[in-house]
């Protein structure tokens, strides 16, 4: 069953067509990878899904309910959580308080006391339990990424949007993060993730959708995507990425 349906969504910024009639669906329980060259419109699509931007055309349907153009806080309460690409910790609040915000105002709308319990459990899950009383501003980048994830998880969403949570992590941290993402899926949360790290996304996704210049150019299993001529073409402009695409396929 489709948890999220995006139907013909377009979004323009001045003369730039950031999204052009994008349609895709996310099935319940899957990990869907969203890839594409820089500027393809991936983050814009996330912003449309969680209500930061209102699309000019098209509809977003979540759990059978149209959510197009609803404000972000309503969408959060319906059960979509997000970890940002550029981390946005609430600097002067502690790590625990940051995560409590997620639990308090997320889908389950918990009381402060319950939120504290949930936050402690989630911090344990992402490996930040030892830093709970530290101000978020003092964390390093890898920890801030985990904090983003923890905050999103504490909301107990149906769908989590992960925007390049692996970027900037070293190989060990990437491996740990992939385990965390698998555990998230195992706990029943559907995952939609933007990722540039090709071997990781090929490895973890059930399905992949490729965006280029705001349009969906391919959709399929990781194997299908790696063979797809339009995908290879799209990435040819970026030798590093096309190389990693081929390597990922070979490995």
């Amino acid at each position, binding site marked *: 069953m489709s948890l999220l349906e995006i139907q013909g969504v377009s979004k323009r910024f001045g003369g730039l067509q950031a999204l052009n009639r994008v349609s895709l669906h996310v099935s319940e329980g899957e990990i869907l990878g969203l890839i594409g060259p820089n500027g393809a419109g991936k983050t814009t699509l996330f912003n449309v899904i*969680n209500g*930061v931007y209102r699309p000019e055309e098209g509809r977003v349907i979540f759990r059978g309910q149209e959510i197009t153009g609803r*404000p*972000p*806080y309503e969408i*959060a*309460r319906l059960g979509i*959580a*997000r970890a*940002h690409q550029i981390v*946005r*910790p*609430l*600097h*002067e*609040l502690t790590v625990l*308080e940051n995560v*409590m*915000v*997620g639990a*308090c*105002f*997320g*889908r389950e*709308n918990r*009381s*402060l006391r319950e*939120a504290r319990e949930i936050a402690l459990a989630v911090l344990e899950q992402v490996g930040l339990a030892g830093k709970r009383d530290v101000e978020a501003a003092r964390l390093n980048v890898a920890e801030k990424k985990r904090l983003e994830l923890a*905050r999103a998880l504490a*909301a107990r969403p149906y769908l989590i949007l992960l925007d390049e949570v692996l970027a900037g992590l070293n190989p060990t941290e990437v491996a740990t993060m992939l385990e965390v993402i698998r555990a998230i899926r195992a706990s029943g949360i559907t995952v939609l993730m933007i990722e540039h790290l090709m071997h990781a996304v090929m490895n973890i996704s059930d399905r992949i959708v490729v965006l280029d210049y705001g349009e969906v150019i391919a959709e399929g299993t990781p194997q299908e995507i790696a063979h797809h001529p339009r995908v290879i073409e799209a990435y040819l402009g970026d030798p590093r990425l096309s190389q990693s695409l081929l390597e990922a396929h070979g490995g």
Partner: protein
Amino acid sequence: MWRSISWWFTFLVLLGAGLWPIASGSATGREDMFLILMLVTLASSLNILLGYTGYVNFGHIVFFGLGGYVGFYLMHRHGWSLGPAMIAGGLATAALALILGTIILRLRGAYFALATIGIHEAVRAFVANFEPFGGATGMSLNFAVYQAYGGAAQALWIAYGVLLVVTLLTVGISFAVKHSKFGLGLMAIREDEDAALVLGVRGPWAKTMAYALSALFPGMVGVLFFFKNGNIEPGDAFRLHLSIETLVMVMLGGQGTVWGPILGAALYERLRGYLLTSPLFKSLHLAFAGMLLLLIILFVPAGVIGWLRARFPATRRVIA
């Protein structure tokens, strides 16, 4: 809250300080303390918007003035007694903030701050031309009004007692907000409003409620102040510099903490008292306020309480 050491500490210190003039029966002590409690209330209520939510309000005193006018009008023209008039004054300013908030809280940062100055000037101009409020000359209470409170002297003590209750209520609400889910949402907005929205904080609603709550108490205090004063006029009610001095108090003590505005108000009142009475600095106290604000922002942005809490973590248990 009722099991919190820091709440009881705050409550008892304020209550003790507030009861001292009553116990000693000293009228000068009462006058000093009236001013301090009034400033504590103004600063603590400003802190709900400034310190917790991160929105700078240069027009906080507009609520003091307007609330004062509404209450004064009800007492003067309709013979209301102090209690109901005070509540009406507070509710009127909270309602005004509720309406204004839905409009101007769409603005952020410097634009919001500028809008608050605009509101202050607009309300002052309106009141100065509004005949029922006495226009530019304002209104004066008939001395006979105080007879209902057992004479003028007695009325001053009553106003003081009521102010003490309002101050305790304001600080109590400030404490409760800081330690509530609502407060956590406000602080999330302060730190990163867009991220807070994505996390599910109902930004527009939360900000408007914070603004209305911060407008309620100055409205009530305004009624008490002008009741005690006996007359009200636009120049007294809408003193823009008092808004800025209130900002200095909050920043001096430590924005975003419960104790910051209390300590900041008390310290600033003492400092101002000294400056106003010293022949050397007599007319320079506002220049000092400005300089103080600059120094705080540059060197101790967290204020006295913020500095203490960072330097001596043990103090956090008692000083909220």
